[in-house]
């Protein structure tokens, strides 16, 4: 078996020559594995027939997973590992199979086996490496779980040679499509395939550390040849760069809080191998990882190279994975990281839209045990507006930079694009900020149904109000509101126009009734606020309160338009239902009447709601629920008004139409009436457009003025600031 293995290895060895050197672990493992074929059988719970190639690969992989980098140097120049692998006296090489990389493996395995100090049969594979290796097999996590259970790693609590080999064999079986069962590994299987890793990212990220790490480089290259890319290249990058960085820049003892984000990023990792990441989080305590984490927390500990490697791997890997979603962007924040940062932010400042003060942040970040100058520099990078406080995006950027720095990444000269507050803010606030709001407005363009649009818009306008009440003072929010206002401006006229197009096909839509009171409530709010706010706006200081008022003004206008439009539709429909036949003259009459009615409505509603406007307005800024009862108060008024109007309208129109009822002309009259209604509606919409456009320009001007005032205030603040220091 061994000579055959050697031959197989020899052919494959040439390929893996470059990579081979880099696998100190592989060396030892290979040595251990090659010779341990017979031994392995004794450890293996099942009789595992291993082919020579399999044995080589398996042993090599096991060695890689087991050994610490310190042993790598001795195997650096390994080139003809074929013979050595066969002759290696490694421990049981049950089924460590990494097939795709097999080409490279046998050689280093052989070479390592030749002269290496081999891990004994009791050697255990580092959970980190094993985990990565298994993930590189691109099997689903459940399968990997099954495999780990089957191979006995879970039972014994570690990955011994036996378990490792069995696991590799099972991986091969799974990759061949066989069910993950003990029986399936008894037959001849192709070698399992693992994805190669790229070491380009490592070079990219830690160029300075490369030259000092010759022993690491071969490992890296071997990894590269042996492993293909896992799901995201970042994982390899992390795996590689940790190998580089720990030796050159061992991370200073990370505090527990530091470990948390590192492991948090791996919270998603599930298989049994992921216990290594569990240190602060999960309760499953793998002895190996425990040692690894503790050793890591004390910096480079000479006690166990293996554990230190594992720890450094885990420490380095996690932030790097979290740092880079793409191989070329180590500064991107992943979702898990983001959530973690947000949680940390909440622990300091419950209000996510407010600031963390400088002193608070200083105490917090000092816990990271970075040097003060570095922290100062990180602060400089992340506090973009230089106000001595951190908003949520700034905080996340700072945290991210700290995490990166803790794990060996050199700090950038300037804040990377993906850590810019505006970039982060759009990413952060998107779920919170009702980008549904924007979506709803934009989606309303290709309108599906009129009532749905109304519902959506009304709901979003209400939501907008709730958003206003929720966030604390933040100028960013104000800007967004202004944006929203303008978008609402644009959206609403479009909706109106679309609705007019859709109108002919719609009879009185029952779903519209429920929202209408809501809309009218909004309308009344806004009309009242409009009249009040317009007087108040010029006199108020710039602040986000102004934007609330502006928004209310806008919504008032929109609400007016909408309400009137819907009134029009309702009236038309009522007329249609009430009178089957109507002459054009009658229709015109009704239209005129309705138009006249609408105008008084506009004037009437402000007066009606003005009295209740102030209490409404006061309630608005506080919470949504208290304002609702007030809103509903208007409902009966509104409906009463509405009922009065149509009745009056219908009354006036019914009189002339009664004498002229003619059944046969009813249909034609209806269609013409519809046309007239449409034309009326179009006219109304145009007026509404004009009104909204005017309002928009006014709001823009006010916005500019507010901006200027704000700039002036900030300048004054800056000049006044030094006073407090000395």
């Amino acid at each position, binding site marked *: 078996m061994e000579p055959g293995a050697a031959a197989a290895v020899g052919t494959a060895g040439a390929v893996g020559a470059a990579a081979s050197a880099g696998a100190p672990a592989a060396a030892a493992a290979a040595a251990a594995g090659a010779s341990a074929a017979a031994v392995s059988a004794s450890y293996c719970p099942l009789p595992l027939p291993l082919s020579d190639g399999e044995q080589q690969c398996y042993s090599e992989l096991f060695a890689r997973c087991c050994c610490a980098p310190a042993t790598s140097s001795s195997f650096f120049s390994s080139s003809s590992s074929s013979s050595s692998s066969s002759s290696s006296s490694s421990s049981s090489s049950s089924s460590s199979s990494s097939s795709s990389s097999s080409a490279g493996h046998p050689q280093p395995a052989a070479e390592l086996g030749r002269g290496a100090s081999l891990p004994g049969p009791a050697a255990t594979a580092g959970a980190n490496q094993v985990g990565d290796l298994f993930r590189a097999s691109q099997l689903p996590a459940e399968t990997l779980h099954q495999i780990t259970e089957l191979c006995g790693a879970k039972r014994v609590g570690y990955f011994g040679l036996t378990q490792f080999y069995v696991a590799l064999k099972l991986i091969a079986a799974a990759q061949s499509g066989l069910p993950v069962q003990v029986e399936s590994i008894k037959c001849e299987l192709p070698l399992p395939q693992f994805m190669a890793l790229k070491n380009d990212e490592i070079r990219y990220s830690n160029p300075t550390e490369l030259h000092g790490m010759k022993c690491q480089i071969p490992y890296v290259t071997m990894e590269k040849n042996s492993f293909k890319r896992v799901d995201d290249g970042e994982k390899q990058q992390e795996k590689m760069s940790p190998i580089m960085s720990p030796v050159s820049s061992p991370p200073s003892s990370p505090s527990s809080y530091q470990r948390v984000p590192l492991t948090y990023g791996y919270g998603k990792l599930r298989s049994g191998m992921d216990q290594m990441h569990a240190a602060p989080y999960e309760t499953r305590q793998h002895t190996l990882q425990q040692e690894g984490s503790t050793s890591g927390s004390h910096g480079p500990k000479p006690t166990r190279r293996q554990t230190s490697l594992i720890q450094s791997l885990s420490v380095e890997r996690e932030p790097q994975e979290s740092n880079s979603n793409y191989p070329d962007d180590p500064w991107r924040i992943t979702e898990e990281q983001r959530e973690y940062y947000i949680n940390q932010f909440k622990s300091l400042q419950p209000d996510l839209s407010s600031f963390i003060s400088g002193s608070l942040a200083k105490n917090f970040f000092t816990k990271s045990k970075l040097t003060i100058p570095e922290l*100062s520099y990180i602060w400089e990078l992340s506090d973009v507006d230089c106000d001595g406080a951190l908003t949520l995006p700034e905080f996340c950027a700072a945290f991210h930079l700290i995490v990166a720095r803790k794990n060996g990444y050199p700090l950038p000269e300037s804040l990377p694009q993906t850590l810019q507050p505006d970039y982060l803010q759009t990413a952060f606030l998107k779920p919170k900020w009702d980008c549904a709001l924007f979506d709803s407005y934009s989606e309303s363009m290709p309108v599906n149904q009129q009532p749905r649009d109304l519902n959506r818009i009304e709901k979003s306008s209400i939501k907008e109000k709730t958003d206003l009440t929720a966030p604390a003072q933040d100028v960013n929010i104000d800007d967004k509101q202004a944006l929203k206002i303008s978008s609402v401006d644009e959206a609403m006229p479009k909706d109106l126009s679309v609705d007019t197009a859709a109108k002919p096909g719609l009879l009185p839509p029952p779903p519209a009734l429920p929202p209408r009171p809501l809309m009218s409530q909004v309308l009344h709010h806004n009309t009242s606020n409009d009249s009040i706010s317009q007087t108040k706006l010029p006199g108020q200081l710039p602040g986000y309160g102004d934007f609330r008022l502006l928004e209310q003004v806008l919504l008032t206008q929109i609400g007016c338009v909408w309400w009137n439009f819907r009134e029009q539709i309702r009236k038309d429909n009522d007329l249609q239902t009430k009178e089957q036949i109507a002459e054009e003259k009658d229709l015109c009459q009704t239209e005129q009447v309705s138009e006249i009615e609408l105008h008084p409505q506009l004037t009437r509603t402000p007066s009606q709601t003005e009295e209740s406007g102030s209490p409404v307005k006061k309630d608005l800024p506080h919470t949504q629920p208290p304002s609702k009862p007030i809103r509903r108060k208007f409902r009966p008024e509104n409906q009463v008004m509405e009922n009065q109007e149509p009745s009056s309208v219908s009354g006036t129109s019914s009189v002339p139409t009664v004498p002229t009822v003619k059944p046969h002309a009813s249909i034609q009259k209806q269609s013409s009436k519809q046309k007239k209604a449409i034309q009326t509606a179009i006219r109304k919409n145009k007026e509404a457009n004009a009104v909204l456009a005017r309002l928009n320009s006014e709001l823009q001007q006010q916005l500019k003025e507010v901006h200027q005032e704000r700039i002036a205030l900030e300048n004054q603040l800056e000049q006044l600031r030094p*006073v407090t220091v000395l």
Partner: protein
Amino acid sequence: MAVCIAVIAKENYPLYIRSIPAEQELKFHYTVHTSLDVVDEKVSAMGKALVDQRELYLGLLYPTEDYKVSLLSRLGIPCVKSMFPNQLHRYGYVTNSKVKFVMVVDSSNTALRDNEIRSMFRKLHNSYTDVMCNPFYNPGDRIHSRAFDNMVTSMMVQVC
């Protein structure tokens, strides 16, 4: 062409000194130090009641044999600018917290206008406030901020 920019703390020790020709740094230290006396003189002359944030700019300090240091107070005191052949100007600026900025300018190539000097001081002051905003900066420490360095470099290079 600022050849030297210095930030002096309230207790008259330097927080930050940077000069362009590195070999002449000692000379610049000396000149800055001497100019501090002029600054103090001017500040005390202005009196407490007159100190406000608008009058932080002291202008050209006093002439020396090597460098032109004339004092240009915003209070309207007539300024005396002596045109020495060696045209190195020193300008002073005091903040509300008695932190002084001194700038030595070589205007042999271009005669810098007063407004330009004021704008340079304003930029310096803004950068200094940014440094102060950093919670990790303890007032009284030397300034190591990279942003501040970059700003000073730009000022020195641009003026040159």
